[in-house]
């Protein structure tokens, strides 16, 4: 009876890939990516809307974002100090991060299933308690960028060119710092919009309001610092003279922070990033 499992169909486990330095994050990321199949199908069949959009759009966005997040961390993990991922404390921590990620997805997906709000849901003491818990989980899962950023920053044996090394570490640390401020403020409001939309005009795909302030814009950019800065670091390493590349990365980090701050302040003031004229 041992052949109950599909042992014949499991892919070769030995196949090495670009995410092997953090198998737990890579495997979880991949699994979340695969879980898009049922939610996308549910979105296609479910006629229910929430706040003017299909109830499944939000879970789908979270699935895409968290897949990308975990695969990014798994990719950067190769530059962690040797042996750190084998430490017991690290394994407990990364396990907690994965549990937090899955809890967020179950919460957002469950709310979609029942057609109710997830974030900002203070309609019932239970949902309010869950919302608070999920806020703590969100900080926990985002803290992985800070931990990884500092560990990579301190690692002198990455073999990376200094500007690229700096840009990866800085991007990770900025993702944590900026996201904490922006998302923390966002969570303390009663909703993601500042102002009352009339026409409901939004940016395609991303769904940001084109009429009023939308705090999700700043959250998006803040959290993508871990992608933007390394891409800049890669370009600076390849194109700039050596003595200019590291200062350029610092300048880019400052500029990007200013940009996030501007989009944040603009949204708080009720201004859309992409106005609808």
């Amino acid at each position, binding site marked *: 009876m041992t052949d*109950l499992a599909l042992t014949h169909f499991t892919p070769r486990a030995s196949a090495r890939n670009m995410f092997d330095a953090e198998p737990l994050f890579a495997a979880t990321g991949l699994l979340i990516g695969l879980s898009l199949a049922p*939610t996308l199908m549910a979105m296609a069949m479910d006629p229910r809307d929430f706040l003017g959009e299909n109830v499944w759009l939000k879970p789908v966005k979270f699935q895409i974002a968290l897949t990308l997040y975990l695969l990014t961390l798994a990719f950067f993990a190769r530059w962690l100090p040797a042996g750190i991922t084998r430490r017991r404390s690290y394994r407990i921590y990364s396990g907690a991060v994965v549990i937090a990620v899955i809890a967020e997805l179950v919460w957002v997906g469950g709310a979609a*299933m029942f057609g109710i709000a997830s974030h900002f849901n203070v309609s019932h003491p239970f949902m309010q308690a869950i919302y608070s818990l999920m806020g703590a989980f969100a900080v926990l899962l985002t803290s992985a960028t800070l931990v990884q950023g500092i560990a990579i920053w301190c690692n002198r044996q990455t073999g990376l060119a200094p500007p690229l090394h700096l840009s990866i570490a800085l991007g990770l640390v900025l993702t944590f710092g900026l996201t904490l401020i922006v998302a923390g403020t966002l969570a303390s409001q009663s909703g993601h919009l500042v102002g009352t939309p009339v026409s409901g005009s939004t940016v395609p795909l991303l769904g940001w309001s084109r009429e009023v302030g939308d705090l999700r814009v700043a959250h998006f950019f803040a959290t993508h610092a871990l992608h933007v800065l390394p891409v800049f670091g890669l370009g600076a390493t390849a194109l700039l003279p050596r003595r200019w590349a590291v200062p350029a990365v610092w300048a880019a980090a400052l500029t990007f922070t200013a940009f996030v701050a501007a989009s944040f302040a603009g949204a708080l003031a009720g201004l859309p990033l992409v106005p609808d004229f």
Partner: protein
Amino acid sequence: MPPETLFQIANPVAMAGWLALAISPFAPRPTLIAAGLVVPVLLSLAYAALILANWSGAEGGFGSLAEVMLLFTNPAIALAGWLHYLAFDLFVGAWEVRAARRASIPHLLVLPCLVLTFLFGPVGLMAFLGLRLVHGRFATATGGAA
């Protein structure tokens, strides 16, 4: 997609899986991948989507027979239940074919079990388990005598 349309699509898909099992001795690997993996996964995906989209809107539950019957008055949930039958019966059928190959049970003996599993799932499973039990005893006895 209305439940009726999905129903019309799901039945031939499951049927293709059963046909693949019936002819599996001619091409074991592709037919078992189709019937034991691809088709059950497709049906399971549709099941998951139906449950995600319709569960909260359905009445009834699992607590009593009356609740279960009430649950299945919802067309989308009834369709999900039907896809559950299709997916799991086919998966069991594919397991029977694999287990039979492992135990060297002739495919012609497995075919009636597959028909029963297709039509009356659990009856077919029992038939196959009985066949495997009897075949094992018999094969061991003759093997010892030879």
